[in-house]
């Protein structure tokens, strides 16, 4: 790393001679350390899934949600510093709340993603703040259809049909590419998402994890962002496990289930 010791990486809003903002890059490291999060844009909606690393068996299963809701119709999943993620979600909520106050209608997902990325970008511009240590997948259904975006710590945002971030993003991305996007149904996308999280999970590094899946779909949830029903989650997890076992039978010892 050429950054250390140069002094150009000690403050936000400072470029190095070769035009890099190291603090933003370091923030991305925080993202890479956290569990995988993915988003899938399907035929009439969006599916989110996260791999929640279980650091203690005293944690209450199912209680510490990582996927959050920004508005009725918008969900968000992220990897990185969870408190930073909550901060950004808070900002998203007030954007969408004030939009409703002004226009008496739900905010469009592209506009929301645009405003959020602007907010994130602002945190790269000043020495008095630090960049967000999260990479955010935000998606939902509005009157122009389903949308899925990721927002990077730099404030850059892109639209996706399938997005992944966190530790296992590489594996997840290659799996996402195999899907028939965006024609996949919401239900199939849920099952696919479960499978991808299981594949992306690295058993050698993290012992235990919890799967969390939510969706927004015109046909399944009436356009509202909700966690998927328990039976569907169980089924998706069962299928994912079965497949994961098949794949990994040779090279991995399965001892946790």
């Amino acid at each position, binding site marked *: 790393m050429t950054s250390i010791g140069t002094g150009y990486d000690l403050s936000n809003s400072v470029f190095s001679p070769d035009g890099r903002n190291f603090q933003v890059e370091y923030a991305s490291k925080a993202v890479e350390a956290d569990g995988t999060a993915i988003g899938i844009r399907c035929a009439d909606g969006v599916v989110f899934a996260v791999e929640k690393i279980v650091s203690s068996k005293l944690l209450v299963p199912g209680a510490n*949600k990582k996927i*959050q*809701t920004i*508005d*009725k119709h918008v969900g968000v999943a992220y990897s990185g510093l969870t408190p930073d993620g909550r901060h950004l979600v808070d900002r998203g*909520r007030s954007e969408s*709340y004030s939009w*409703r*106050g002004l226009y*008496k209608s739900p905010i469009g997902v592209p506009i929301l993603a645009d405003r959020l990325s602007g907010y994130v970008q602002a945190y790269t511009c000043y020495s008095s703040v630090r960049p967000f240590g999260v990479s955010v997948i935000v998606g939902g259904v509005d009157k122009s259809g389903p949308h899925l975006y990721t927002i990077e710590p730099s404030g850059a945002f892109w639209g996706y049909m399938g997005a992944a971030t966190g530790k296992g993003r590489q594996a997840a991305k290659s799996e996402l590419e195999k899907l028939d996007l965006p024609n996949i149904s919401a239900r199939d996308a849920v099952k696919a998402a479960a499978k991808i999280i299981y594949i992306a999970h690295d058993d050698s590094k993290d012992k235990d994890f919890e799967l969390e899946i939510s969706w927004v779909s015109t046909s399944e949830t009436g356009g509202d962002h*909700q*966690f998927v029903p328990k039976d569907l989650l169980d089924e998706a997890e069962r299928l994912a496990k079965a497949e994961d076992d098949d794949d990994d039978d040779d090279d991995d010892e399965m001892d946790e289930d």
Partner: protein
Amino acid sequence: MDHMPENWGRPRSDVYGSYQHAIHSAGPQSHTQVPSITGTSVIAMKFNNGVILAADNLGSYGSLARFTDQERLIKVGKETVVGFSGDASDMQYLESMLERLIIEDNYEQDGHNFRAPHIYEYLSRVMYNRRSKVDPLWNAILVAGKKDDGSPFLGYVDLLGITYSSPCIATGYGAYLAIPLLRKLVSEDEDAKNVTEEQARAAIDESMKVLFYRDARSLDKYTVATVTLDGNVKFDKDVRCQNMNWRFAEGIRGYGTQKQ
């Protein structure tokens, strides 16, 4: 041709009286002190398995029956119904506030949902604070649903921030015409335990009919909403007054001494 755009589409001044320009030219310091499009009574009562309420579908502009498809009962959250009488624009403002309240409540999806007492308290604070600014929201509101202990809840709040609960409540003319009928069934909370949903519905229908007979700003088309203790909310829309009787008027001639 009237060249003043603000007059277009208004009721004719020679028939309905001139438009109150004070409303239009109100400056930022001047608060709306007069309701314009209004809805009349909302009536409600508890029964053994919940609360039932009704409001007709008329939006009046003074004495003009301006809108005949005004919905004044709304579902808020999962198991609460709020009924509005009074100014329609203030009602819509409150509606949007409640919608956003519920959206905020659903952010966490953590099993906590606002129920009737919480929505009622919120509305009460909003109404009282606005009256304290001498800038009231010109409504009388009923909130119906479940209490925290699972029993039926019914509460009233109005433009002054006055609040009270009772097993039967009605706003507007309903307080004079419907309450005597409803109170015969449920004078206290205990009485509600002996009233079935069918009996309650019959009493509500009867009251709406009496209101249509005697309240000049009412309509014979109304909505009935029922909240049951299992958390269900049922809306029955476009209900019509049944078995009305106007024919006895045929037997009446004049106002006293006229021959039959």
